């Protein structure tokens, strides 16, 4: 299921439902766009494995994307065995956003047909969150395998959001 953001009037919700999108308020979208890291969880042998990753939000499809170097590709192996993943947006450090906490649970698909260049279409998103990335790219040969990267797209199934990050209170839940 994809994500639609904006106001949640009845017409918007109906439109979202017809397109198979998950309607969420704008503060959730702002969180996706601005938080520099998310806590990404895969499942290995029935147990969670959570690591910080740099997330990108694709507003046109409602999907979320991360990329992974083959150096750190165990999570890719996990996703191929079990595509159920989650992405927690909990840390507003380095942003001017509010302290919201948003959990996306969804299904991951991995793409490694072009390890050298397939991920480059997300460079503009990467640059917004890490403006210095071009300096590292200029030394691409120095970190050759770091720049061999698998693209992971996550299609949200359920979004659980705590306004102002207060997880002692009941969250808003969007989607299935």
């Amino acid at each position, binding site marked *: 299921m994809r994500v639609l953001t904006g106001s949640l009037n009845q017409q918007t919700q109906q439109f979202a439902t017809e397109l198979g999108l998950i309607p969420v308020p704008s503060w959730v979208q702002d969180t996706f766009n601005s938080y520099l890291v998310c806590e990404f969880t895969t499942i290995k042998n029935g147990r969670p494995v959570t690591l910080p990753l740099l997330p990108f939000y694709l507003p046109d499809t409602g999907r979320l994307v991360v990329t992974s170097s083959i150096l750190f590709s165990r999570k890719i192996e996990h996703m191929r065995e079990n595509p159920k993943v989650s992405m927690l947006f*909990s840390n507003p450090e380095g942003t001017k956003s509010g302290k919201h906490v948003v959990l996306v649970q969804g299904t991951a698909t991995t793409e490694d047909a072009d390890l050298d260049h397939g991920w480059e279409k997300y460079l503009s998103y990467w640059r917004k969150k890490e403006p210095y990335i071009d300096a590292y790219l200029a030394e691409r040969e120095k970190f050759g395998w770091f720049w061999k990267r698998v693209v992971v797209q996550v299609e949200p199934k359920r979004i659980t959001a705590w306004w102002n990050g207060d997880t002692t209170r009941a969250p808003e839940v969007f989607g299935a």
Partner: protein
Amino acid sequence: MPKIDYTRLANFQYAILTTIDDDGYPFSVTTNYQLTPDKRILLDKPILPSRLDGKKVNVLFNHITGIPTGGYTDRRYMLLWGTTHEERGKLRLEPERLSEWDEKILSFPEYCAKVAPQGAKYLQKLQPSVEA
């Protein structure tokens, strides 16, 4: 019982507790934590998930420092796998395994060199499909 540096573990703002929900998806939530003098890790009970007594979980402690011109530095995390037990209104984490990285201890280039075998393994697995 993993060897945990409790001084470093105390130096995070909050914890992220993750378990697997009834639908089979990972479920993560933030919570506050404290370390007791006898080295117990106590987590505040989040409202969700509701059943955490005796659950297999992982708890991530993660830190970045934002850079005023954009991006971040000072990356470090500690990831503990274990079981949670309800005790006096808190959750006590009984740790079983630890994974961690602190770029001030192991620089990013050194880290990349250390995990090179995983990269080689990935490429080796690709090779048969390339040759097919």
